[in-house]
């Protein structure tokens, strides 16, 4: 690009793990097991780490914290009452004193009472004190996204609200292997991180995950598969859908797509996406959250700003509709692989 925005943190300099050569011992894990493994490693390696939230003691409603209380004790793994604002503020205070706080907000839909603490306190802590203090030790983990029957208040993806807050880091894994590495980077990051876990994948996604301690760089996207005809960008659970769409595009229409997982939403890897668009000239961005002011809008705006002349077709956003997340019509609402395939085909044809 033309000296475009450089918003990457030092955690971006962590090397990408070489899963085949460096991590020979792997176990098949699903998402909640991988997250459990990351928290266990964090608790083992950093004695100031504490894990807390509603119902985490017995293992959590999604079983992410199973066994941690037995292993590390009630002082370090404990339940909080039903008080999201309290949970967030409490985490900031503990981290400000140098500790590592892994707080859980039981569903991302419940994060809204905590947003004042997150946006006004957590995000501005270092900035407002002139770097005297920081609360980098905070990691807020929260399950997000559609799950099939969640309805209005158990399906939301609030990454757009959080990404609008400088000072925060927003991370979202696409599966068990990325989850463990990203969560360890997030916990150890010197900036406060909101770690969003696609709840539909807790049991459904199973991958070979290294048993060892490993980290994935923050602020860096991953090109899942290379392609020449069209760039497709997504994050979190949506990548499963996008993989299907890309496969269908190749098999049925011979379209070679380059699929990018942003992994970190804030700060996002602008250079990676720009580099890909320079190659393909076409872009589709897809997310479950409603289209207006979703994070896709930010990606599109930045790409057109820096890569206007590389673009061969208008950028497509395939997203949820501008309604509250529905109950009965979820299948119709979500941006599925057919809608994405449609968008890919449309712009490839446009560019011909």
């Amino acid at each position, binding site marked *: 690009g033309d000296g475009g925005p450089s918003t990457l943190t030092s955690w971006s300099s962590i090397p990408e793990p070489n899963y085949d050569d460096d991590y020979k011992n792997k176990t098949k894990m699903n998402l909640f097991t991988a997250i459990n493994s990351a928290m266990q490693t964090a608790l083992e390696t950093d004695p100031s780490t504490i894990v807390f939230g*509603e*119902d985490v003691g*017995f293992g959590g409603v999604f079983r992410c914290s199973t066994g941690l209380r037995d292993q590390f004790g009630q002082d370090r793994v404990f*339940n909080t*009452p*039903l*008080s999201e*604002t*309290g949970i967030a503020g409490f985490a900031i205070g503990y981290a400000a004193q140098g500790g590592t706080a892994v707080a859980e907000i039981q569903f991302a*839909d*419940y994060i*809204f*009472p905590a947003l004042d603490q997150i946006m006004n306190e957590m995000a501005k802590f270092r900035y407002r004190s002139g770097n005297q203090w920081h609360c980098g030790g905070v990691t807020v983990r929260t399950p997000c996204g559609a799950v099939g*029957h*969640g*309805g*209005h*208040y*158990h399906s939301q993806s609030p990454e757009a609200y959080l990404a609008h807050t400088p000072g925060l880091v927003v991370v979202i894994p696409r599966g068990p292997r990325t989850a463990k590495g990203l969560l360890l980077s997030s916990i150890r990051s010197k900036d406060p991180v909101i770690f969003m876990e696609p709840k539909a994948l807790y049991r459904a996604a199973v991958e070979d995950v290294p048993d060892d301690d490993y980290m994935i760089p923050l602020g860096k996207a991953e090109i899942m598969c290379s392609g020449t005809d069209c760039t497709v960008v997504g994050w979190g659970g949506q990548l499963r859908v996008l993989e299907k769409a890309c496969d269908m595009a190749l098999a049925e229409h011979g379209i070679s797509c380059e699929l990018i997982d942003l992994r970190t939403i804030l700060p996002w890897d602008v250079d990676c996406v720009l580099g890909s668009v320079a190659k393909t000239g076409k872009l589709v961005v897809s997310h479950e959250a409603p*289209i*207006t002011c979703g994070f896709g809008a930010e990606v599109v705006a930045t790409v057109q700003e820096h890569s206007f002349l590389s673009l061969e077709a208008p950028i497509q956003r395939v997203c949820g*509709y*501008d*309604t*509250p997340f*529905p*109950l*009965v*019509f979820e299948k*119709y*609402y979500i941006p599925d692989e*057919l*809608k994405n395939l*449609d968008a890919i*085909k*449309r712009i490839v044809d446009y560019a011909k």
Partner: protein
Amino acid sequence: QPSSREPTIRAHNSTKQAEMFAATALARTAARRAATATPARLGALRAMSSETATFDLTGSFEMYKLDTAPENSIEMSKEELMQHFEMMYTMRRMEITCDNEYKAKNIRGFCHLYDGQEAVATGINAAFDPADDWITSYRCHCIALLRGGTVKEIVGELFGLTCGMSQAKGGSMHFYNKAGHFWGGAGIVGAQVPLGTGLAFANKYNAKPGEPMNVAIACYGDGAANQGQIWESANMASLWKLPMIFCIENNQYGMGTSIDRHSSHSDYYKMGNHIPGIRIDGMNVLAVKKGMEFVREFTSTGNGPMYVEMMTYRYHGHSMSDPGTTYRNREEIAFTRSTRDPLEFVKKTMIDAGFSTAEELKDIEKRIRKEVQKEVMAAKEFPKPSLDSLFTHVYAADVETKGNQEYPDHIRMPDFSKSFWKSA
């Protein structure tokens, strides 16, 4: 140790503790009362529906920061008591039906059942004016029924069919009934309380000077009681002397965490600090009615808000995904069912007062069972809602356009004319 002046109804995970449960004054009183309920007047003409009796309510109430208290007895007619019984039994059958339908996968998503707590809702409604405003949590099926709902509408909503009370847009946690002054049905814990305080404010604002105001009640659980927004609302209600009732339905558990493990202070009726409070035996519909009449009188006449704690219990788990036995043992549930069940209490009260016989009540139960089944079958006849209802009622403008599918520009519709999936 619980003192005799301040019985603490606690339920713990052991049979021994469950026995202590019964040893508290309120439970003892309930049992004694059920055993000795004698009518003050027992006419020879038992069949007449206008007969009434007086029932002892000693021990049902505990007061906080109040010099007055509800009377220790209530007079009720056979007709009214029978009405309450039928309503409570309908609620019980409806909730059990929801359980079965959920397991049959006809109901999906979230489902929070109210069985065990029927007396609370029924008693509150009995004391209330139809124009009083009621807002509650996600455990709202039975209150929806009381406030103008029918079993068909409720079960239909759960099935996701057009006969549903919210046209299938809300589901289990989102029942609303404007005519019934029923404001739902809330998914976010505690969010109903500031809303309820606003309803109370509107009632005060709209009331004619000197006349009693309609009250607003927000029901929430022991788990919600420590939400910050509730303390904020209490301050506003007290400052402006709103006709507001903060009603904690204390069923001993916030999802899977017992009250002593999630609350540093579990005398919920005292949580208003300087706001007066009352604790009521929530398993006794007569006590609930009497207590709520007292509360309503207080709050609707400009004395400001009141905290009400209903001591109650839920038989099911938090929701249908919770078996309800990992954090409490089956003995506790069975024990509560056998000693404090609100339905059994009402039946025994009616039999002892000579209002009815066991056989008559059995027949009524049979009839209600059939009626509930009929409603469920009738609901199943309705279709699923059409796809356009996904986009309706986001904003006011689309309500006004009658079915011509004109949506505001910012609600993007899929434009199938540009799709490659249309057959050429």
